């Protein structure tokens, strides 16, 4: 690669087809500033480094999001929220505007599925609702909303939402692009 110190090889850049080299450098810069002692400057050898959850949720884009822990957990390989650089890139490319709707639907389902059983059951919904309203609704109100939501979206009658139910419901939503 000549005398210039580069962070990535040409192939790595090709592989990260999602973005431009400078954006890639920028993302790497952001990744690094979360944990400068952990993340090396030179990525040409694909080092195996993971940044823990607690550091990632301090990013300004995620700080105010009620689902930040779930988002990070969804994109981490071990499910505990420790992201390698690949996962980091994954997360931002899925959340960006250019990513396709189907991809977002899949990830949204994973995010809202708190207990990771591939169904959004009533407990998952209660947790979602409480995070959204910061606990301002009473218990009966929460129960009512969850029941109504299941009633509306559940197609196969098992009182929880499978991915097919979720997708069917989301695909008709006018606001779901972000």
């Amino acid at each position, binding site marked *: 690669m000549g005398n210039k110190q580069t962070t990535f090889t040409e192939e790595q850049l090709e592989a990260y087809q999602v973005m431009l080299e400078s954006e890639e450098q920028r993302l790497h810069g952001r990744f690094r500033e979360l944990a400068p002692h952990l993340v090396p400057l030179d990525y040409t050898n694909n080092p195996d480094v993971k940044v823990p959850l607690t550091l990632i949720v301090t990013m300004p884009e995620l*700080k105010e999001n009620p689902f930040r822990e779930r988002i990070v957990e969804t994109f981490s390989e071990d499910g505990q929220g420790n992201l390698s650089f690949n996962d980091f890139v994954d997360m931002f490319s899925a959340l960006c505007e250019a990513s396709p709707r189907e991809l977002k639907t899949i990830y949204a389902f994973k995010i809202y599925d708190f207990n990771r059983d591939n169904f959004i059951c009533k407990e998952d919904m209660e947790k979602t609702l409480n995070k959204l309203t910061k606990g301002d609704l009473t218990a009966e109100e929460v129960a009512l909303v969850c029941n109504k939501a299941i009633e509306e979206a559940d197609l196969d009658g098992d009182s929880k939402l499978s991915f097919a139910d979720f997708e069917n419901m989301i695909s*008709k*939503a006018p606001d779901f692009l972000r």
Partner: protein
Amino acid sequence: MSEGEMARLMEEVEEKKKLIATIRNKPWRMKRRLVLLREAQQFVDKFEGALGKGKGRKWYAYKVMMTKKWIKFQRDFENFRTACIPWERKIKEVESHFGSSVASYFIFLRWMYGMNLVLFGLTFGLVVMPEVLMGLPYGSIPRKTVPRAEQDTAQDYSVLMDFNGYCKYSVLFYGYYNNQRTIGLLKFRLPLAYLMVGLGTFGYSLMLVIRTMAKNADVGGGDGDEGEFTFAWKMFTSWDYLIGNAETADNKYASITTSFKESIVDEQENQKDENIHLRRFLRVLANFLITCSLGGSGYLIYFVVKRSQEFANRDDLSWYEKNELELIMSLLGLVCPPLFETIAELEDYHPRIALKWQLGRIFALFLGNLYTFLFALFDEVNTKVLNSIGRMFEYYANFSLPVNDSDATPPPMDPGDVILGPCWETAVGIEFVKLTVSDIQVTYLTILIGDFARAVIVRFLNYCWCWDLEAGFPSYGEFDISGNVLGLVFNQGMIWMGAFYAPGLVGINVLRLLSSMYYQCWAVMATNVPHERVFKASKSNNFYMGLLLLVLFLSLLPVVYTIMSLPPSFDCGPFSGKEKMFDVIMETIDLDLPAFMGTLFSYAANPGLIIPAVLLMVLAIYYLNSTSEAYQNANMELKKKMQMARDEEKNRRNNTDSTNQVMKDLEDLLPNRSLAPPALPEPG
């Protein structure tokens, strides 16, 4: 390798290539993606070369390499283009503080700026520059010179601010342009270019607006019933993932909670026993009041325009009297919308419906104002045209005198001394420019006083005031999205109308949009607070585009009417001396194009050809309409089927009786019910 093997190998290579192209869309882990990608690329590299064996292998390998380079170039170019979009960071910042609906205004503003930039390029490059570079300079002919009588005051600031004096006789306005058929060495046909650019402006804008609407319609998609998934949508789609600011996030939490509570109350409540007659009466009353105020504002404008015509004959005008028209129009635009909102309290509609009514009324207000202004203006124009016929005779009379006296050519008169007839196009252009400028001034002043001064007062007076200024009245302002968007739309309508009479207007607008972007971004970040009810910009994008389209058509009408029916002034502008403005096209066809084109056009203009063409278009519209209706019907059928299937499944699971009589009858014939649900049998 045999033929069959080669074909199979080619298929595999194609498959791998497709995989490489779509790999970014698959929801896999990055590691998995990288591994698969490497595998696929290696496979393709290995076998693509092999396929070329015996078939000009070198050429095949070369082609493959060129394709790769071309794809890489395209990707780089695409990345470069995305990086070039201006103001992206600024808009993202606004978005994270205020939510996506406020940011959508700025995205709209940026889009408008792009469109105006193109229009400016067209006008400047094809009309202004040729006249400046190749046409006669200032002061050479009467239409380009300030008349002797005005020369003393022509440089005064107050005169320039009114766009008289040197401004009036400059490239800004229609009257400056010469009617020579061709100018300069290149034989540039300026009058033709002027007409074509005027019409091309509308054509380009139309194409752009429709293309954007079509793109938005694709994304908007969703045809589901509004009430179908209320709670589920509220739960899963209400959070705006782009919010990055704590205050906005707090507001968002509060608004989500409120919206849940509202829906819960809606769900729990029974039909209210309301006095429906009282409600109806109040609504009728409200509409009546609003119609009255709309009529009142229209009459006020008409009255003021008539007064300004009288003022035009006087010379001793105060500043107020000179600018009365523009002031009144801007004030009406400021005062009436809050008035409408207050009256609408009587109606007691659901907030979303109330907003639609409000937008419709503001639109009617602006439209009424604009058209009243236009009618009054064209009244004036007609009087001027009639006057100018008298002046024409006077003009010729003056010129013919010296010729009668001697045989020599008449002594060259100083261009400043020649009597010019009234140039109504320039007058109309001046009116539009003044209106635009006053609109700009009012907007900027409103932001400065209504938002900035208010914020400063609230912030600093709060220390020594009896009640909490920040929480109660007046507190900080919120960004008025619909008001600003409508203002932008109507401003653009005025530009479209005025650009034909004042080519410099588009340039003024470009400057205005540019400064507006920076100014409003600063104002919003420094002086506004996020809305109490933070809401998302959903399908309303196409609503504003639809408004823009309507305004485009409405502003097309006066210009086309002028081109087709009104005679141009006889001594100013590129069409002077002709009977109608579009005669310049006829002239070009006769003189410049080869003979057969002339005959071709005359055949095409034959009614015998035009009427069948119109009939054909009507038939095409009818056909497309009926096909789309058929598709919609098919859609409804499919939806009904899905709904029926879903209900059946639910009923089956819950062991309740099916409501469908046919299904009931067939149930006895069906096998064991506890098995996996069978496919829906054909009824009857």
